[in-house]
């Protein structure tokens, strides 16, 4: 292991060359760790006060069958590197990653399931995950899923880990479906750059029939995607006319994620949509199933999760 020298990494981030070495490190932990990829989404969630561990040492394509449209790569592989590999075969990623500054990795895109403009036509990152190798909180290096699109052999752990923000397991390798360029769809999301220039940025995923009212009422800068069902709201303060954005999104039947905010704000306010007691109880069951000791990114999403 060595300290990371590049990327948007916390200083002194530990970096490993093989999944086995990282697994062995996790197995011996007696203190929690903060899991990082390219750090492009480091500004989302409660700050995790723990020793940083990087996946950037786990890089490279491990399996590529262009005729099957299937690609496997280590989690720390940069999205830009994957795009270059795919480009040579006239292929594209089946989701549009969102770069919020820094260089996103494949692992980071899947772990956050933050997709871009094309959810309606091409699916979210999670829709295109076929298999994963991962390290659970006990330091076991495991695999789930496989390399074929149709696969219901056992619980769908690769999808369950999508969007878990490194709090259930550390993804070390991911197999995804890729697409021919011919099926690429023009991107929308006009105005996103202006939104991102704001100190506070919210991402609201809403029922389409309720999104218009919220969009119309927003006083700041805004971008719309998914044919109006996804709103990016930028502003100076976190609330809209004194109302809590999470509550506003929930009242409309959707949810909100604070994707950009000052560090001091994030320490004391949730970025992730607060959940019902019943729903958070299910989150705790999954957390206990994968990371019973609470070693991985504890508290990044919710209290203890």
């Amino acid at each position, binding site marked *: 292991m060595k300290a990371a020298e590049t990327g948007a990494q916390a200083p002194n981030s530990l970096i490993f060359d093989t999944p086995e070495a990282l697994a062995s490190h996790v197995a011996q932990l007696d203190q929690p760790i903060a899991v990082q990829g390219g750090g492009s989404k480091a500004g989302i969630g409660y700050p995790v006060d723990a020793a940083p561990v990087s996946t950037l040492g786990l890089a490279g394509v491990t399996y590529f*069958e262009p*005729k*099957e449209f*299937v690609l496997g790569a280590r989690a720390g592989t940069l999205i830009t590197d994957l795009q270059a590999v795919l480009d040579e075969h006239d292929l594209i990623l089946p989701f549009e990653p969102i770069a919020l500054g820094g260089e996103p990795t494949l692992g980071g895109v899947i772990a956050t399931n933050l*997709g871009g403009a094309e959810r309606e036509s091409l*699916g*979210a990152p*999670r*829709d295109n995950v076929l298999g994963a190798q991962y390290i*659970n909180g006990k330091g*076991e290096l*495991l*695999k*789930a899923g*496989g*390399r*074929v*699109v*149709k*696969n*219901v*052999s*056992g*619980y*769908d*752990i690769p*999808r*369950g880990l*999508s*969007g*878990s923000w490194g709090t259930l397991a550390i993804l070390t390798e991911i197999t995804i479906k890729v*697409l*021919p360029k*011919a099926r690429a769809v023009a991107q929308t999301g006009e105005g996103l750059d202006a939104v991102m220039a704001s100190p506070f940025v919210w991402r609201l995923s*809403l*029922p*389409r*029939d*309720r999104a218009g009212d919220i969009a119309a009422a927003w006083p700041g800068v805004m971008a719309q995607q*998914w044919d109006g*069902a*996804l709103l990016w709201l930028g502003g100076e303060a976190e609330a809209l006319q004194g109302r809590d954005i999470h509550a506003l999104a929930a009242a409309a*039947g*959707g*949810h909100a*994620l604070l994707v950009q905010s000052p560090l001091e704000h994030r320490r004391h306010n949730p970025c*992730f*949509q607060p*959940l*019902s007691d*019943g*729903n*958070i*109880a*299910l989150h705790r*069951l*999954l957390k206990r*199933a*994968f990371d019973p000791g609470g070693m991985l990114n504890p508290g990044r999403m*919710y209290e203890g999760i």
Partner: protein
Amino acid sequence: MLNMPSPSSAVLARRETIASDLRQLLGDDELLITSANELKGYETDGLACYRTVPMLVALAETTEQVAAVLKYCNDNGVPVMARGAGTSLAGGALPQLDTVVLGLSKMNEILDVNTENKTAVVQAGVTNKNISVAVDDLGLFYAPDPSSQIACTIGGNVAMNSGGAHCLKYGVTTNHILGVKFVTMDGEIVEIGGQAYDLPGYDLLGMIVGAEGQLGVVTEVTVRLMDKPEAARPLLAGFDSALDAGACVAAIMATGRTPVAIEFMDRPAILACERFTGAGYPVEAQALLIIEVEGSEAEIAEELAFVEGMARDHGAISLRVAEDFASAENIWKGRKSAFGAIGQISPDYLCMDGTIPVTKLPDVLEQIYAIGARFGFEIANIFHAGDGNMHPLIMYDSHRPGVLDEVEACGAEILKVCVDAGGCITGEHGVGIEKRDHMPLMFSPAELNQMKEIKRQFDPQWLLNGGKVFPLEEDGVPAGQVVPGRAAA
């Protein structure tokens, strides 16, 4: 012959008390089935070679009843299993002697259709086909289409993450579920997801869809609807070798121009289906591809020309495009009743469900025929070729003593070939009991244990749909008394 967990004699001894308690919870005597005659209707599913009459059947009409039954079973250590239409080909709805079957078929209402969001909220017992029928006038449809779609329920589809012929283009169940009403084993009712395209927090839908009804019971489902294509047209391409047809599929898929469906049938399947439905399949062919394209008339013409060219290049001996809507319907009717058609020519069959990378199709087909020949079974192949999801049907006669063991051994070899080719043991039917003991082909003990740890967290007493998905020895469930499966009549 698969082993079943020993039924709990303590639970069986309390049968009368449990029945009386459940009657009270359901609030309507008609909703609890106790007579041996009626219970027999719940003894099996689409894997009819295994049969066990359950202890009791509780028919739920509301989510609150489901919650009450689950909480009761949890508090009293009673095994329980949700059942939709009972069409599982993997024994996913097979009860055990001490099981309370929680029947959801009465929960069959479509609660809401939202054309702007393109969603429908339906109860778990609504059939797959009825969702599409209900929104047909609106120009919408629900895309995943298992062959059993006339009978199978959306709740069962969610449990098994079902696929279907048109999933090649549209994706499987998990890609089309936006929300569920989920009842936990301790009777909590939790709303997950809804009308938005994605979820806050963990991907609980991803975990629940395909967990084979082992984590909780889903009573309502919010599905995503799609715009109906302007038109669709199937093409029949006959080949004089199964290997040519397999190579044609691989070549079409490699271009990235994905048709909406590519279905494969070999000679035994062609003959059986033609006899059954008279759909006009080429009876002289050794293998048949049904390739469907869709879009505007111009798009259809262009795609058909491309597909026809590919078929000719791979030695197609006959090509026929459906002339009209009725003939297209008939072509699909033949395909979707294929399992029934095989039932007409063979007393029994076991349907496998392995998936392989499409480029391996010709090679794996050859190996499957060789395995069948070695065991002395005729095998018909009917499957979703475009995504490599194979359905070899091993034909047998259950009246011959010991034959089920031989059939299962033959099936096990086929699944091993699929896994060795880079595929998996089940593409869309689920593990159930049928492939339970083959899970170690794909997963290490630690990997299985991680899945089981999820189950343990959601259902610590392992009461919900137990005896499935995981090999018994691994669960610590004593294999003990074997519940004898009885072959289909």
